[in-house]
């Protein structure tokens, strides 16, 4: 199975976001259409639906292209992604009005207040989560698809 390795890398990369997306859509439907939450939470779906899967797929393609030279473990490679993804996501969220910057912290979805002191902890959590997801899920899929 040596054909189209980059296509297989892309498909392996978008696997996790494709699994999480229905969960996000379910939360959206329950909050917005069933509980009639007044906040336009659908704006928060744009980034995880449109950009995150592509980012994961392209990042896995980049790992495949660079692994021969860098020999970077896939978990570490995945943990680097939030360094680029977090600012992009925050910018998109800020532009769409789902992230408000205040004096003491930021407010997500007009409900989740995150003090500035905790943003670093959240970022480290994102690094850890991405590391685990890439090491155990994307890495497994890469082995199954014959590109690792």
């Amino acid at each position: 199975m040596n054909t189209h390795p980059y296509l297989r890398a892309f498909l392996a990369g978008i696997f996790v976001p494709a699994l999480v997306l229905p969960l996000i859509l379910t939360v959206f439907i329950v909050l917005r259409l069933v509980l009639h939450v007044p906040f336009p939470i659908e704006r928060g779906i744009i980034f995880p639906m449109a950009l995150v899967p592509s980012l994961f797929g392209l990042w896995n393609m980049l790992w495949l292209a660079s692994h021969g030279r860098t020999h970077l473990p896939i978990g570490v490679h995945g943990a680097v992604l939030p360094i680029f993804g977090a600012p992009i996501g925050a910018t998109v969220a800020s532009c769409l009005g789902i992230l408000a910057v205040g004096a003491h912290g930021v407010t997500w979805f007009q409900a989740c207040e995150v003090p500035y002191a905790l943003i670093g902890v959240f970022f480290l959590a994102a690094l850890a989560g991405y590391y685990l997801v890439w090491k155990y899920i994307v890495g497994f899929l890469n082995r199954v698809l014959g590109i690792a």
Partner: protein
Amino acid sequence: MKKLLQQALPPVKGDAEPDRDLWPAMLERLNAQPDAVALAGCAWFDWALVAGLAALVAFFPASIPVLLYYL
């Protein structure tokens, strides 16, 4: 035609058989479970990360939508 085919496919010289039975090695490779071994060999560091993430979600439930946003 027969002559051309014989020229294109020259006979194998010498003993073409390997000097040992390759099937046991093949069976051993088929029976190996690299994924199970990889999971069993999880570093303590990974378990610490899992515990840290679980603690963060438990103590700061507000992190759940933020983490989902980035997945």
